[in-house]
């Protein structure tokens, strides 16, 4: 006992005794140097040893937290250790409770958060500091109605491992803080009979087994359910009691303290009789009720594990409120609905796009195959319509363009076909990559090669077929036609190589005969060639191959000389009668040429053959074969047959249709010469002929064809007429 007014360590003047507890007397003192009030408190003997090390004392002195008093010093007087701490003005919470009865939730929640902050700070120290005696009496309420947690048990700061408490506060201490079940029973007044070892955990320094042999020993089958439940709880308590305190013990004590503040009643010392805070007749929110219940769980494992966890829960207490939960659920539901809408929208769009795309592809393929059918049937207008429809669907896909090229080729518009094919092949927009495209590109080169071939441009035909093979080397027709073109450029050896390749790729016998005929033809073996072509014609099912074989067979006859002219005419007439004239335009042209040659050879029946030739040419001209050459041929034939007026009419048509070509004027000049030739000398007038000649010369000079023999002849004729003075008249 130290007297009031005495000065400790020349610094602390004791003012008055303000309390006393298990540890000793608590004084209000005045710090002489700092000029402020402090509290000097004697600390328990058991802590003395711990605090002899300055390091531990420094840890306590370094604690700084708004809701904890600051420890200034540890002093030793008369072998007693005192701690000097902040003086907190105000009153303890138990006095406040005595005055005000209980507090409302809002205020208690504020203090709970402050206390949780203080605990979070203590528990986060290394090692964690356990208060172990949280109760209203150890909480100061300042005049500003904030709190301060005082009297924390310094002994628990440095006791590693299982900690043992120095004391128990009935109603506030958790089960694990009791040393053993006997202690608990003695404090709560529960009757029991226990058999336990004599040493307490504190005494032995280790946990001791406490065996319950009291009322639980007499549990029997007939026991009432309530009794059974009670017995189960008791058994559970015996397992929890004596386990030692840790951070979770402070959580329990704080829970009971809050319980007291809200209800105005100390929780029952008997754990089995504690009434849940949620069942008390107070105005308590759901969230706070849940937090307090969790804090007051008997099992430490079920409580918040430390002050930080508790503080987190209190800061988010609103999230436990049913109204907040309902709000969150409402937001979640809307978000789910919107997400589902987005997802459904994307799925439906994807499904729609796939469906449309699939139909587009089907429609495209249908249009392309329809175009191919129209082309094979010779209906080029409908083929064009289908091709245009296909191109409209997929302007970048190649197949429709390939069909257009085929259409132009089949229409024998070879120049247009080549031009179109070149444009397609050079257009990067309609040349996508890929295996299918390679095959189509191969086809385009193949058709282009055939078009060159038809124009007798065999060199370019060879190049085109070679390109076709580079894109698709599995099509034997490419090799076949390449071989044929090579024959035309005089490379029979390479042609044979290509033919071998074609045979390896399964080239049909008809095609083999055809190529062999071509090779024989190129080598001047026309009779042999004629046999090959005839065999091919009789054996092939390919219309195009047959047509080409027919033309070449006719050429073979032609090359074999005039002795075979009748055979040639018979052959061609037979083919035309079999196929029909409409399907054999090229053959009709060849036949007309044969008639002309026959007319030239057979002077007696010249008119007859010329007439047949004119008929054939006129048929061609009126069936879409309206070329300048055909028109010129007809006019020449009319001239030969002395039908000069008809010849003139046709030639005038020709210059009207082809005004920039010199040949119309050339023919007219010759015709005019013939007309004047037939007149008596005095009636002749070569003025018109001169006009035609001058016009012809004007156009001739602009054109590349500078080796026209007939122009030379006409020039000579004009010179003779000039020399003869026919223009001087």
């Amino acid at each position, binding site marked *: 006992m130290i007297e009031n007014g005495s000065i400790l360590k020349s610094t602390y003047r004791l003012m008055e005794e303000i309390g006393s507890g298990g540890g000793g007397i608590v004084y209000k003192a005045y710090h002489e140097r700092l000029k402020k009030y402090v509290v000097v408190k004697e600390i328990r003997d058991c802590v003395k040893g711990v605090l002899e090390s300055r390091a531990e004392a420094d840890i306590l002195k370094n604690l700084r937290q708004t809701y904890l008093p600051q420890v200034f010093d540890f002093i030793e007087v008369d072998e007693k250790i005192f701690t000097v701490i902040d003086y907190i003005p105000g009153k303890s919470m138990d006095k406040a409770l005595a005055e005000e009865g209980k507090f409302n939730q809002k205020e208690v929640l504020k203090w709970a958060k402050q206390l949780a902050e203080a605990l979070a700070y203590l528990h986060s120290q290394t090692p964690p500091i356990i208060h172990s005696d949280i109760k209203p009496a150890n909480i100061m309420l300042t005049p500003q109605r904030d709190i301060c947690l005082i009297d924390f048990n310094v002994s628990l700061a440095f006791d590693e491992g299982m900690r043992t408490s120095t004391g128990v506060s009935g109603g506030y201490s958790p089960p694990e803080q009791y040393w053993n079940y006997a202690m608990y029973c003695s404090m709560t007044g529960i009757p029991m009979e226990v058999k336990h070892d004599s040493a307490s955990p504190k005494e032995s320094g280790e946990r001791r087994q406490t065996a319950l042999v009291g009322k639980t020993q007499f549990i029997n089958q007939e026991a009432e359910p309530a009794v059974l439940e009670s017995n189960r709880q008791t058994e559970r308590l015996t397992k929890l009691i004596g386990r030692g305190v840790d951070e979770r013990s402070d959580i329990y004590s704080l829970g009971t303290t809050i319980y007291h503040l809200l209800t105005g009643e100390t929780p029952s010392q008997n754990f089995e009789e504690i009434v849940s805070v949620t069942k008390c007749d107070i105005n308590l*929110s759901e969230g706070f009720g849940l937090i307090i219940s969790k804090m007051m769980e008997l099992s430490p494992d079920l409580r918040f594990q430390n002050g930080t966890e508790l503080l987190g829960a209190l800061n988010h207490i609103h999230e436990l409120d049913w109204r907040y939960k309902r709000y969150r659920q409402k937001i979640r539901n809307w978000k789910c609905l919107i997400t589902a809408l987005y997802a459904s929208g994307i799925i439906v769009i994807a499904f729609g796009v796939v469906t449309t795309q699939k139909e587009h592809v089907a429609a495209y393929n249908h249009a392309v195959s329809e175009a191919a059918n129209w082309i094979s049937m010779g209906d080029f207008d409908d083929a064009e319509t289908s091709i245009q429809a296909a191109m409209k669907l997929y302007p970048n896909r190649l197949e429709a363009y390939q069909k257009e090229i085929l259409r132009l080729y089949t229409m024998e518009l070879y120049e247009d076909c080549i031009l179109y094919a070149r444009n397609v092949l050079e257009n990067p927009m309609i040349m996508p990559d890929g295996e299918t495209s390679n095959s189509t590109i191969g086809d385009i080169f193949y058709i282009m090669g055939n078009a060159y071939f038809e124009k007798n441009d065999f060199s370019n035909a060879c190049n085109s077929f070679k390109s076709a093979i580079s894109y698709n080397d599995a099509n034997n027709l490419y090799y076949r036609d390449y071989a044929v073109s090579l024959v035309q450029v005089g490379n029979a050896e390479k042609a044979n190589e290509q033919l071998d390749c074609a045979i390896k790729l399964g080239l049909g016998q008809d095609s083999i005969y055809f190529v062999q005929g071509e090779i024989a033809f190129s080598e001047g073996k026309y009779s042999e060639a004629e046999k090959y072509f005839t065999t091919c014609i009789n054996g092939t099912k390919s219309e195009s191959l047959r047509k080409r074989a027919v033309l070449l067979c006719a050429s073979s006859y032609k090359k074999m000389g005039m002795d075979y002219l009748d055979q040639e005419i018979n052959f061609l007439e037979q083919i035309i009668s079999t196929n029909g004239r409409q399907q054999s335009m090229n053959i009709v042209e060849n036949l007309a040429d044969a008639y002309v040659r026959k007319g030239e050879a057979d002077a007696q029946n010249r008119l007859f053959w010329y007439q047949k030739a004119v008929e054939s040419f006129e048929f061609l001209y009126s069936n879409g074969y309206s070329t300048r050459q055909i028109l010129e041929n007809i006019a020449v034939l009319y001239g030969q047959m002395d039908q000069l007026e008809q010849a003139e009419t046709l030639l005038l048509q020709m210059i009207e249709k082809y005004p920039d070509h010199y040949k119309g004027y050339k023919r007219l000049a010759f015709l005019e010469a013939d007309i004047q030739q037939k007149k008596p000398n005095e009636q002749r007038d070569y003025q018109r002929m001169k006009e035609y000649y001058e016009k012809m010369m004007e156009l001739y000079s602009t054109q590349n064809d500078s080796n026209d023999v007939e122009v030379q002849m006409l020039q000579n004729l004009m010179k003779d007429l000039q020399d003869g003075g026919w223009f001087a008249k």
Partner: protein
Amino acid sequence: MAVGSLSKEELKMTMGMLLVAAGASMIVLAIALSVWLTVMGKRWKAEIDAQMKETY
């Protein structure tokens, strides 16, 4: 054009386009609802915050 006069392919294509339109409408609706929820969410949050402040 009457539906009866459409070919099977045209019907499928029309259905595909209708699906695309329906999907697009759903996404537009979802966007509209997102905007609405953003606005309403703020209002609801303010209301609940006021209630929570009053209680706690």
